[in-house]
Structure formats: structure tokens, C-alpha cells
């Protein structure tokens, strides 16, 4: 990683950490949700590197969120750190099982299968109401963070800082992953599967491990959302949630690990203001935004970085 990029990253992290104590609570809450959703969008972007579009990352997003809820209710776990670890492990385990099948598929078949899996979970969450709470979902009581039960007022900021730390760690790990042989192999899968097999490597394994890793990211996003909101419901597994992650990914772009996060922050604020000023047509506003994006910035908001660079050069 270049020193300048590290410096910008550290300064951004510190700056974002500081705003948690300054901005109004509702804004901090929106930032927390945006970062959590950004992680799920990053998982979509990760798979897009291999040319795979997943319409089913909500499967792992909801798995992460519900795992936390079950750990609280069934095991009495209250510590946020343990809930995070448990949720990520369970999400990756679910992916390790579904991945055995889905990693064989590409293009529309991969997209539709991933959608099918998440809708199966959605159906189960709705019907098994005696465990899942059905459409009402489950409440998650305020967790302890680092063994401390924070006051309600402080908890919002503490959870925001925890979300920020988790996001930063995930970004660094994914950045390292994308620079590794396996990370490059993902791009190789998109470009030429035949050559990869004729280098003696398994395309299936590359896709499988990327799928499992992406599930861990989405699961992390899910549990962070659950802890910040304090509630889980089946909507987390519904296909529109998965669609939002794809929307966010396209909005931000896929060229950098930061792009989906930027997309998530823009999306979260855009949706909030669209709901405020156009409560009956907010989806139309988002649709219009997507149309403009596809027409003028098909590679997402990350393209703005190059525009700025070009101006600086000229």
C-alpha cells in the first residue's frame, strides 16, 4: 500500500471517528447503518471481481443479524464482540454449505440461485414465528461493548465507533486479499477460466472461497445493523435488501474497496432525504438516480476521482 494512501486512510478513519462525538445522533445512526450496509455492498463488489452478480447477499446479512438475536435470546450472550464473531462464523458456515453448489454456476444462474437461497431463508423467517418472531422479528437488547454496559445516550456513539473500527479492519483485510494471488485469481476467473484451469488451479475453489469470504463480510454488516437498530426482522433477508446492495455497489463502483462504502453513505442519505421530501415517490427518485448513473457514470461515483485527477493534470 502506498504511504499516501495509508495516510489518507488513517486521517479519514480518525476524522470519521471524531464526527461520532460531534454530529447529531440521527446522523451518527445513519452513518452506522451506511457503514454496515457498505460492508454488504463490498461483499457484492468482491464477487463482481469474478464477474459474478449476487442477488442473494441478504442471505448472509440476515444470517448475521439473526445469529446475534439468537445468541442474545438463547445463549444469553450480551457482549458485542462475541456477537460479531459468532455472526461472522455462522454466516461463513452457511456460505460454506450453499457454496458447495452455487460455486459451480455463473452469470444469470449464479444470480438466480443466490436469490433463491435468500428467499428460502426469508420464507423460513416468516413461517417459523415461534423461533424467529415472524413478521414482527426479534428485539435485541442493548449489548455490552468491551464488557461495559453503556448508557443509552452513549451507546449510540460507542456502537458507531465499533462499527467504524470493524469496517476499517474489514477494508484493510479485503485490500490485502485483493492484492494476494487468490484476489488476482478472482479477476482471472472473470477474464479467462480456461487459462486458470490450465495453470493447474481450480476455478471452483477460487469462486468458493471468495463466496465464503463475501458471506463473512455481509454477515458482519448484518450483525452491525442488528446491534445498531436493536431489532431484526425478515425484511433483512428479502430480495429487495439484496437489490439495495447491488444498487449501492453500482452507485459507488467496484474499482476500490472504498467505493461501495462511499456508495452506501450516499445511498443512505439519499434515501432518507428522498423519503422526507418525496414520501410517495422516493423509489422513483432512486430509480432516476440509477438511470443517470448508468448514463453518465457507468463505473460509479468512484469515477469522480479520475475526473478530479484529470483536472489536476490539465
Amino acid at each position, binding site marked *: 500500500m502506498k504511504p499516501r494512501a495509508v495516510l489518507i486512510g488513517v486521517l479519514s478513519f480518525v476524522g470519521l471517528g471524531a464526527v461520532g462525538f460531534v454530529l447529531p445522533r440521527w446522523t451518527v445512526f445513519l452513518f452506522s447503518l451506511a457503514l454496515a450496509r457498505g460492508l454488504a455492498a463490498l461483499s457484492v463488489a468482491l464477487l463482481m471481481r469474478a464477474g459474478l452478480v449476487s442477488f442473494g447477499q441478504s442471505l448472509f446479512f440476515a444470517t448475521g443479524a439473526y445469529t446475534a438475536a439468537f445468541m442474545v435470546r438463547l445463549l444469553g450472550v450480551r457482549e458485542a464482540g462475541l456477537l460479531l464473531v459468532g455472526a461472522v462464523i455462522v454466516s461463513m458456515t452457511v456460505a460454506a454449505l450453499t457454496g458447495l453448489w452455487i460455486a459451480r454456476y455463473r452469470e444469470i444462474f449464479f444470480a438466480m440461485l443466490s436469490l433463491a437461497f435468500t428467499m428460502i431463508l426469508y420464507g423460513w423467517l416468516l413461517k417459523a414465528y415461534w423461533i424467529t418472531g415472524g413478521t414482527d422479528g426479534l428485539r435485541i437488547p442493548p449489548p455490552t461493548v468491551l464488557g461495559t454496559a453503556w448508557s443509552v445516550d452513549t451507546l449510540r456513539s460507542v456502537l458507531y465507533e465499533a462499527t467504524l473500527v470493524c469496517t476499517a479492519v474489514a477494508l484493510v483485510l479485503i485490500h490485502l*486479499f485483493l*492484492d494476494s*494471488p487468490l484476489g*488476482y485469481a478472482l*479477476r*482471472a476467473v472473470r477474464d479467462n477460466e480456461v487459462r486458470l484451469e*490450465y*495453470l*493447474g488451479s481450480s476455478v471452483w475453489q*477460487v469462486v468458493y472461497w471468495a463466496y465464503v469470504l463475501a458471506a463473512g463480510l455481509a454477515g458482519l454488516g448484518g450483525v452491525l445493523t442488528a446491534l445498531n437498530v436493536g431489532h431484526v426482522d425478515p425484511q433483512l433477508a428479502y430480495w429487495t435488501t439484496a437489490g439495495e446492495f447491488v444498487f449501492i455497489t453500482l452507485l459507488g463502483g467496484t474499482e476500490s474497496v472504498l467505493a461501495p462504502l462511499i456508495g452506501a453513505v450516499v445511498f443512505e442519505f439519499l434515501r432518507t432525504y428522498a423519503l422526507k421530501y418525496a414520501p410517495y415517490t422516493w423509489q422513483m427518485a432512486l430509480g432516476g438516480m440509477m438511470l443517470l448513473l448508468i448514463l453518465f457514470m457507468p463505473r460509479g461515483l468512484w469515477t469522480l476521482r479520475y475526473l478530479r485527477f484529470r483536472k489536476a493534470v490539465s
Partner: protein
Amino acid sequence: MTVVLETEGLTRRFGQVVAAEDLAVQVREGEQVGIVGPNGAGKTTFLNLVTGYIPPERGTIRFMGRDITGLHPRTITRLGIARTFQIPQLYSNLTVLENMLLAWAAREGRMMDPWWPLRRTAWVEPAMDLLARFGLADDADRPTYTLPEGKRKLLDVALALALRPRLLLMDEPTSGVSVREKFPLMDTLMEILLPAGVTVLFVEHDMDVVLRYAQRVLVFQGGRVVADGDPQAVLSEVLAAPSKTK
């Protein structure tokens, strides 16, 4: 001399088309064998059968005495058979060096490494050395989709050679390359392959290339080997009967 590749009774049909019928081929260590024949004679099918791309209906394939019939292409590659393609199979959106480094990761069995960087010094230096031998060092940072066809062919071979194969199968290494570039390209390939002790089997349509670079030639027709021997003798016989083979 050790027999590197041996096929017996190798047969494969596609509907009514006989692509390979009772093929019995032996290739000895260090040989450079050319395969010629008209379109549809079964030349590429033979390469596809040997490398596991398509399974045979009948027959056996042995590599270094080991039965490799029906094995997966990546298993066969790991055993020491590498191949190149008529249309170079590259990672178009990666740079030349990144293509080579992925081959290096495969050679070291580290393709599934998820943390340590691909661009590690221990790999970059020898990869650049190999690129330099193929005349591609100056193009190391170019995306491969920007390369001219001759250089794409060279890179395709370089990727295969990075795996340190014992047997290299090349499918029409000079196709799509201008007449002027054919011999320099083959000179470059042979100058690298022969000292490395790699046994080479190449499909070729250009008889001048076969005459100059093959020690032995196999003539395919209708999925069978109809002639096998010294290129000069075999090709003069074949060229005298153009209606049978190209």
C-alpha cells in the same frame, strides 16, 4: 530415450465425425514433433484429449508411464503437461507481469494464498527474467488486451513455460502472426524451449515452420495418423499428393 507421451487406441467421435480413431502416438523426451493435416483432421482434438479438455471414448493416454486418461486438465497440468492455444488464452484485463505472476503462483502451488501479495520480490524478479527472455519485459505493465498478436502468442507460451512443464503442447503457435514475424517468433520459442529440455509437440499449418523446427512430423487425416517420420521425407510425399493432406 524415455517415452514422455504414449497413446494407444485413442478414439473420439462427435456424432458422425471421427475426430480421433485408434490413435497410437509415441513422443520421446526432448523431441520436437510437428502435427500437420487438413482442417478437421483431428489435430486439435488430439491436444484436447491429451490435456483432458475432452475425454476419449476409448483408448489410453500415458505420460511418463502413468495413465492419465480421463484426468482433469488441472491435474494433468500439475503432472507436467502444459499447453498453449490457437487463440492465446490470457487474462486480458491484467498486465503482462500480473499474468506471469499468476502463473508463478500456480507453479509454486500458492494460488489459493489469500493474504501475502502477488507482487512479491521473490516472484517478480524471476518472472521479469522470463519475460525478458521472451522479449516482453518492456511490456510488463501493459494490459494484455493492448498487445499485438505476436506478443500475445509469446506470452501464452511464457505462461505455460513458467509452470516448468516436461511436455509442452502448442496449438498453431504461428497462426494470426504476420509472415514476417513467424520465423522470429519460432526462433524465440525454440531458443528458450530447447535448452530447458522441454519436449515440444506443436500443431502447425505452415509447412516451412514444420520443416525448420520439427525433428519429426505426424500427419493427421480423418482422425488417424497417416504418416510419421522425418519432416523432409514425409512432407515431400504429402505435398506431392495435395488432395489428401494440406
